[in-house]
């Protein structure tokens, strides 16, 4: 075995002091730096390097684990989410709007088109002014909520809760993310396609009301839609970002999904309007809390290293 190979093997042994995750991320790079900084002809690591590696490894092992809410993937997921929600909702409402030109159809969502267009403003403003973008996101959401609540004849149900929560998540994402430029760097054309397709499917659902179908058909459609969106996002985005994005999108998705299934089941029993199960709000609240903490940490949690 030549000197360099023997030295590398010994360095690798010392790198075992580091946690496996650190070795996976930096191990090969560290070996390169260690070999480059060691004088030629040495077969053994210098004592100072050995002490440094062992001490560094121990420190890395003793460092408190990250909570999962402060890792670097959350800001990326929030950035993607800040673009994903308006793109999806705009695609849905565009389909709904275009359907108005079909003879004999009137969607009844006319009031919602202007505030929906306003949803596109926060990501555009965030290209330059992040705080203003967050304020505009709150204003657009408030406008939407006002129209929604005004139009209700009964207290809010699952589908309306989904729209309200989508706008809330949009506010959290705009306020906590590094902005749409970061999102543009992460999004691939496949992700854009998935988001637009999801929006178009939601727009068609607002026209054809699949929840009046027999329960199993409605359930099948919902499951197929969710599976396609999940698979599309996981396959088109880096996985840690995709999973966090899915957690964020689950906040508005849960009440809508529960409501569609409940409504379909109630229709089968000829009940006009399904009661929304109160327990369904618990996972939503939990996810909303997790997202809010992640967004806050993404924005403010940068301690001095």
């Amino acid at each position: 075995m030549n000197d360099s190979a023997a030295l590398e093997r010994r360095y690798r042994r010392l790198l075992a002091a580091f946690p496996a995750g650190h070795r996976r991320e930096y191990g090969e790079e560290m070996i390169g730096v260690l070999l480059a900084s060691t004088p030629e002809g040495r077969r053994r690591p210098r004592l100072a390097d050995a002490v440094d590696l062992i001490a560094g490894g121990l420190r890395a092992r003793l460092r408190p684990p990250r909570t999962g809410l402060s890792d670097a993937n959350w800001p990326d997921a929030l950035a993607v989410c800040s673009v994903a929600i308006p793109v999806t909702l705009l695609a849905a409402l565009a389909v709904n709007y275009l359907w108005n030109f079909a003879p004999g159809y009137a969607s009844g969502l006319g009031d919602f088109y202007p505030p929906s267009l306003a949803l596109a403003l926060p990501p555009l403003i965030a290209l330059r002014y992040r705080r203003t973008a967050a304020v505009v996101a709150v204003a657009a959401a408030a406008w939407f909520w006002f129209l929604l609540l005004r139009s209700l004849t009964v207290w809010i149900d699952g589908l309306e809760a989904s729209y309200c929560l989508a706008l809330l998540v949009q506010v959290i994402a705009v306020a906590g993310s590094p902005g749409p430029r970061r999102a543009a760097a992460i999004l691939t054309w496949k992700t854009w396609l998935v988001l637009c397709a999801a929006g178009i499917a939601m727009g068609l659902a607002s026209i054809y009301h699949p929840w009046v179908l027999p329960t199993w058909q409605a359930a099948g459609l919902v499951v197929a839609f969710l599976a396609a969106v999940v698979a599309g996002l996981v396959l088109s985005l880096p996985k840690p970002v995709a999973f966090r994005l899915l957690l964020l999108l689950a906040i508005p998705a849960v009440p809508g999904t529960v409501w569609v299934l409940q409504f379909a089941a109630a229709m089968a029993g000829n009940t006009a309007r399904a009661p929304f199960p109160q327990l369904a709000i618990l996972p939503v609240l939990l996810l909303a809390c997790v997202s809010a903490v992640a967004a806050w940490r993404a924005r403010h949690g940068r301690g001095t290293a």
Partner: protein
Amino acid sequence: MTKQAMQEPTFLILTALAAGPQHGYGIMTDLARISGNRVRLRAGMLYAALDRLRSTQLIDAGRDEIVVGRLRRCYRLTPPGAAELAAETARMRSNAVVATRRLRMLGMGNA
């Protein structure tokens, strides 16, 4: 909440990256040069610091490259990292101004 002062190795790493993206070995040698060989960070501590700085988004990593059969990755300063470095520099400068003024009052005019 009062922010803690930045540790010197962190300050020097950010300063090294303020000149442009650099890979690990480049940062290590630049850091020694900037500090006049007073601070030397070896691989173990350097990569622990780089990991910490990446997790706090003060720096980020570029694409992996293979150079002479070895993995190499460039690190660069992020806008929040540059802002943090600027804030720390302003804090140090302001402290130095006060210290210099008071040393002059002690008659140590060259301080």
